[in-house]
């Protein structure tokens, strides 16, 4: 009989629970709240059968566009042929984790606001733009001794005696 292409085909390992993490899922997954506009990672939890997304979305990150009683609507980009479609799916909260992709941005925002406020207080003008790492500066090499290394001419007689 041929393999079949059902919704959960080829997910034997993908949806499997990790080693020694089977059984009841920790309660923080149920206690987290999600607001519209937040970024979330989709990671399927094989222990909960309801509200599972299709295997394509496992590992994708999207934005929340809807919040219902037990599930969240997530908008994920999917490439179909020659274009990218924004797909809207509903996923139960057990298969969703808050994403850290915007964490660095949010922290930088806070820090920059702080720096700008301080600069305003002093009257300085600062730029909070990120600069890429430039080429390394030049430096003097201290206390270096020069050792010239040249190859020694091949001595057939001696070498053969050693390892023959």
């Amino acid at each position: 009989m041929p393999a079949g292409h059902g919704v959960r085909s080829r997910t034997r390992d993908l949806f499997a629970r990790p080693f020694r993490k089977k059984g009841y899922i920790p309660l923080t997954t149920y206690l987290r709240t999600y607001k519209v506009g937040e970024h979330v990672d989709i990671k399927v939890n094989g222990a909960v059968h309801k509200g599972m997304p299709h295997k394509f979305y496992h590992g994708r990150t999207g934005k929340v566009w809807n919040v219902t009683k037990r599930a969240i609507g997530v908008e994920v980009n999917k490439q179909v042929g020659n274009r990218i479609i924004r797909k809207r799916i509903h996923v139960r909260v057990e298969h969703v984790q808050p994403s850290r992709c915007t964490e660095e941005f949010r922290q930088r925002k806070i820090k920059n606001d702080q720096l700008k406020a301080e600069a305003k207080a002093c009257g300085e003008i600062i730029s909070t733009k990120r600069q890429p790492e430039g080429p390394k500066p030049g430096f003097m090499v201290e206390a270096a001794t020069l050792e010239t290394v040249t190859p020694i001419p091949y001595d057939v007689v001696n070498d053969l005696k050693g390892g023959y």
Partner: protein
Amino acid sequence: MAFVKAQKSKAYFKRFQVKFKRRRAGKTDYRARIRLINQDKNKYNTPKYRFVVRFTNKDITAQIVSASIAGDIVMAAAYAHELPRYGLEVGLTNYAAAYCTGLLLARRVLKMLEMDEEYQGNVEATGEDFSVEPAESRRPFRALLDVGLLRTTTGNRVFGALKGALDGGLDIPHSEKRFAGFKKDDKQLDAEVHRKYIFGGHVASYMRALLEDEPEKYQSHFSEYIKKGIEADDVEEMYKKVHAAIRADPMPVKSTKEPPKEHKRYNLKKLTYEERKAKLVERLNALNSAAGDDEEDDD
């Protein structure tokens, strides 16, 4: 042969998955907990309160708890060991005491939230099924009963506490099926019987029965009652007074405890990360200086 085979090998331990800590301790039923705590996502941060009732051998604990990621937060708590303050000194874990504890917690919570004027609840305990009616301004305080690992049989003391909280004015979804006095044959709650239990009538009738038939057992079993001078007929009056006292002043008393004494330390105190690094630097310096001295000596 069987002796050797019974060993748990290293492979067994390597693959062993422990249950959650509180499950190993046998204290939390996670299946029930998940269902009690789960809040609708479109209600965001609205807390879902649980009316937690737990019994120990000598005490009853009733709490209003809401869950959070950092840990559960107890909004208010009432214990049976507070009941002596209201005039109940004996029988602190019976059905009537559970009723008093539930009532105390309900009045306490409502007073904390300043809803106690609106929601008086059932002042006269009749044993009938009573549910709070929503008043004009605020909706009643809603909590869900959390029994823990108890077997919910008809007439269990936990439902006595539930009745106390209901009569106190909390909104707890319930059915009268498990109150003491529910007849499975008629499928009806006998309010008279329930009222008897709320006022300790079952204890009183046992006292009367023992007094007639086995006076020595009465002396040993109800010794505390005898010491306090409580007879079978006084029991109902006593509970009525306790209910009234609870409704009059439900707020808890802050007890002042002295700070605990310092004990002599018998084992070494664990060093902090900084202290350990400092120690290492010291040792290295000592080593270096010692090595320096040796070299000087050699030279």
